[in-house]
């Protein structure tokens, strides 16, 4: 088995083994450490000695031993206080229940910050090592380890049981889970600087985790919608940057470089997600991404449909970023002045007034309207306001182009 096949196998087995251990022994925080140690041991031993015949049983046994050692040393510290803990090793066969969802709900516990939720999810459910996650987020391993350990202490303090929440709470908690998966996916784009083969691809990892949730909840429209949104966004990955890492806006992308397989799967999912009684923000965003995906070129885009979808999205999940996107769609549909009028309403919003996205959209619409000076100024201000180097280079290049095309 190749090293990458072993890694895939470990990532698949991690939540299964962890779920089985927590079911058996309780103490999520201790089990999670023990499974992480077992995974680390496997990454060293398996490539050298070969993958054991029953890899899941191997991991469960090693993790159980680590857990027992851990409990023994804990109790030794507590003056050898008697522990009611069955010091038995896990049987070879781990029960076949899939606890992935239960684990995800636990890792995305609402008392945690988003940064902790993402880190813990990637480790406990994604089966990544602390070092891999730290590299992916460009923080020191010690920083990330502290974050994970604090997150587990908070979960422990909250007294969470290892069960799926019921009813309305379940719906609410699922929203948090989906948001965390979405954040991991986005991080895969924003944090990607250069080709670093050692770095885990967070976008691919988020898709893999969302696929697992979709397999567990196949009829949930928002889960399908999120997966569709990820696949359709990911299909444009090769086309959205140049070889030197510069951004290529959607209307200038070479659509031949879009991934047809991902598009086909994403379209199918987006369509099926709309079949249910509920309509949520991920389904709508997937529908918007699908509308872009079926356009043969930028001029063929169905802006009427996109604008209508943004209108619904704005109604069910009001958010200045959605309004911003609707302004772009409206400008394509009715002309730049209509779009600029929508932007004027956002100036009153303090969070938005100096936001680089508002400035860059205004620059774009002013450019469409033929106001080169206004567009130039807004591109420059947007370039100053962004924290992304790639975006800054793109905005500066737009500003430069305007100056170049202007007679002095």
């Amino acid at each position: 088995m190749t090293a990458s096949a072993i890694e895939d196998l470990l990532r698949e087995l991690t939540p299964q083994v962890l779920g089985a251990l927590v079911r058996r022994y309780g103490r999520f925080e201790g089990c999670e450490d023990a499974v992480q140690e077992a995974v680390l041991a496997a990454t060293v031993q398996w490539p050298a000695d070969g993958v054991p015949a029953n890899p899941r049983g191997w991991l469960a046994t090693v993790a159980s031993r680590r857990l027992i050692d851990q409990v023994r040393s804990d109790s030794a510290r507590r003056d050898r206080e008697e522990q009611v803990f069955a010091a038995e090793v896990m049987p070879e066969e781990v029960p076949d229940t899939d606890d992935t969802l239960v684990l995800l709900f636990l890792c995305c516990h609402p008392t945690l910050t988003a940064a902790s939720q993402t880190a813990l999810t990637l480790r406990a459910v994604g089966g990544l090592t602390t070092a891999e996650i730290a590299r992916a987020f460009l923080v020191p391993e010690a920083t990330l380890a502290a974050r994970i350990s604090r997150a587990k202490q908070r979960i422990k303090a909250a007294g969470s049981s290892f069960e799926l929440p019921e009813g309305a709470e379940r719906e609410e908690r699922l929203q948090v889970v989906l948001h965390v998966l979405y954040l991991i996916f986005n991080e895969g784009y924003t944090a990607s600087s250069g080709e670093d083969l050692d770095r885990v691809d967070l976008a691919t990892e988020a898709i893999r985790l969302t696929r697992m949730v979709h397999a567990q909840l196949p009829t949930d429209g928002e889960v399908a919608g999120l997966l569709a949104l990820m696949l359709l966004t990911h299909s444009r990955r090769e086309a959205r940057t140049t070889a030197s890492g510069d951004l290529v806006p959607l209307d200038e992308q070479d659509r031949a470089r879009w991934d047809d397989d991902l598009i086909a799967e994403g379209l199918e999912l987006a369509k099926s997600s709309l079949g249910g009684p509920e309509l949520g923000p991920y389904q709508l965003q997937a529908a918007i991404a699908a509308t872009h995906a079926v356009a043969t070129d930028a001029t063929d885009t169905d802006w009427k449909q996109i604008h209508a979808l943004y209108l619904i999205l704005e109604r069910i999940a009001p958010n200045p970023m959605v309004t911003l996107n609707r302004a772009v769609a409206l400008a394509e549909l009715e002309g730049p002045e209509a779009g600029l009028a929508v932007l004027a309403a956002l100036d009153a919003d303090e969070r938005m007034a100096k936001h680089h996205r508002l400035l860059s959209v205004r620059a774009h619409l002013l450019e469409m309207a033929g106001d080169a000076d206004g567009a130039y100024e807004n591109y420059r201000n947007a370039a100053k306001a962004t924290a992304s180097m790639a975006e800054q280079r793109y905005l500066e290049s737009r500003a430069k182009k305007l100056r170049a095309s202007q007679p002095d």
Partner: protein
Amino acid sequence: MKFVISMHINPAVIDALTDEEKAAIGEGHGKFIQNLKDHGELILTQALVDPSQASVVRIRNSQPVVTDGPFLEAKEYLGGFYLIDVEDKARALELAAQIPDAAIDGLGVEVRQVMFSDGQLEA
């Protein structure tokens, strides 16, 4: 999101503090660092030597020229910084307010987001 919280010190203001006040600042930073570590938010912190120990390097006629003293003749100098990784800007501002320097007249704490990083982050 990564931020640098830089501490701008005024040597005259620091000199005028009592020993107790100076000790309280040191202690405050110690607690602050521990808190950042516990939260998994600290990447790195560094404190710099007195600005009088600074050297300025310039290339003149293709030759490096080194002069003593800080680059800018000012009352305030960069005294040190924290590099942190936090949820959002609001959290960075909340943390900056916990730095002892922020409570002292004449000293300033500045928060700016990081735009590019490279180097050894796996401490």
